[in-house]
């Protein structure tokens, strides 16, 4: 019996030591984030985004102040936490970024297709970074509440769900490989579960975000692009149907989660 107890002790020791190390690592990361959160550089993008929204730009020299993000022309507050949604004028379900492309084309006269093909961090993609920072910030603290009222919204959700579980490529990965279970990590990076509401300010409710490691502001489109890269998939088009469907799937699943976007990431 004594032998058994000491055996259990020996077996548990590394687990306990290990748990302690893990905790302190997670703690230091949290501290680091808290330190940085005092001045989230995303605020600089927000300020620039608000200015860009109101500035007359593009071939038509028009501002975006009449852009309808779903709650009516010019209404920004609260729009972010209801996207993606169905838009009758385009007869499409759109996320924030594809909707902004529509406004930039229809109101300002830009070529949406060209902007979609532009590399992240270049040209009008830089404008989009700032715009999504400001627009998401206008919904900070609000809770996600996507509509499933329109048949196309429900269909987009189903397509997104299929895409989420679609395994392919040389590694056999799908979105679910990393985000299908709660409490998992890649290296030290915590992975939010995205098949359900992962909690306030986590997962879908934490993008757009400022990435400290790269000094960039990433919207959900860029985040998804990097997911597909790591999934070893081919390259997803900016504002392509699969990205919008995944946004609908994650957004509906995140119903009730509080948005902290634009968040701060390592």
């Amino acid at each position, binding site marked *: 019996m004594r032998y058994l107890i000491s055996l259990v002790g020996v077996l548990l020791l*590394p687990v306990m030591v290990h748990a302690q*190390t*893990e905790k302190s*690592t997670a703690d230091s990361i949290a501290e680091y984030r808290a330190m940085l959160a005092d001045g989230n550089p995303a605020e600089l993008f927000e300020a620039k985004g608000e200015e860009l929204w109101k500035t007359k730009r593009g071939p038509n020299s028009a501002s975006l102040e009449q852009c309808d993000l779903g709650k009516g022309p010019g209404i920004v507050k609260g729009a972010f936490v209801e996207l993606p949604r169905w838009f009758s004028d385009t007869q499409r379900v759109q996320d924030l970024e594809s909707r902004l492309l529509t406004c930039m084309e229809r109101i300002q006269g830009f070529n949406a297709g060209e902007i979609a093909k532009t590399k992240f961090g270049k040209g009008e993609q830089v404008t989009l970074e700032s715009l999504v920072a400001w627009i998401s910030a206008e919904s900070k603290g609000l809770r996600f509440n996507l509509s499933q009222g329109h048949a196309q919204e429900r269909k987009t959700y*189903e*397509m997104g*769900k*299929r*895409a989420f*579980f*679609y*395994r*392919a*490529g*040389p*590694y*056999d*990965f*799908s979105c*679910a*490989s*990393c985000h*299908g*279970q709660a*409490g*998992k*990590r*890649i*290296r*030290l*990076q915590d*992975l939010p579960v995205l*098949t359900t509401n992962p909690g306030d300010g986590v997962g879908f409710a934490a993008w757009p975000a400022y990435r400290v490691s790269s000094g960039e502001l990433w919207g959900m489109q860029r985040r998804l692009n990097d997911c*597909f*890269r*790591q999934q*070893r*998939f*081919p*390259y*997803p*088009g900016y504002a*392509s*149907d*699969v*990205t919008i*469907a995944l946004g609908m799937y994650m957004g509906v699943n995140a119903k009730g989660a509080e948005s902290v976007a634009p968040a701060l990431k390592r």
Partner: protein
Amino acid sequence: MKFKTLYFLLAGLLAVGPVAADTKTDAEFNQMMQSSFRDEGIATVDRLKQDETNAACSKAMGAHLPAASAQSIEKAALASVRPPSDGKYLGDWRAGEKLAQNGRGMTWNEKSAATSSNGGNCYNCHQLSKAELSFGTIGPSLYRYGANRGVTDPQSPTAKPIVEYAWNKLNNSKATNACSDMPRFGQAGLLSEAQLKDLMALLLDPESVVNR
């Protein structure tokens, strides 16, 4: 003969409703996928094609496959695995540790899809050595993999089943778990036989950082 014809006709009539709806959704989904992606470097759109294993596991959406389907996938996967050409299962654990740390391979950033450009990505999902604290938890801990299984001499007959199990798992993870989250490192051509042997040594060599 007549009976058979009638039977097929009936079966066809019964199936046509749901199958038609399914086929339509499948077609729309495939159309969405095809139109959403493009080639970028080595990551070409033909990667979207699924084999039967990935198709079945995608359809299950995280649920367990029916036992018969899982068994048939596992059986086929196991049959795809060949023992090492020279009969030696273990290489150099130090090279294995380097591979395990290396998370690169097969993204559109990589210039080449050759096995020499690929890492093992092991620490992304598994704990291995005690010293490396930055490890993932999608897969089980492999710390003391050989030692916990009583492997003191990997060449010995008693170690044989454990050695072969690990070899099968690394070569084709679906041989033991139809919808395993782990890539099929051998079967998919991600790692060479020599690289796989080095990972085997990392797991099973009593001198390796995993077991010491």
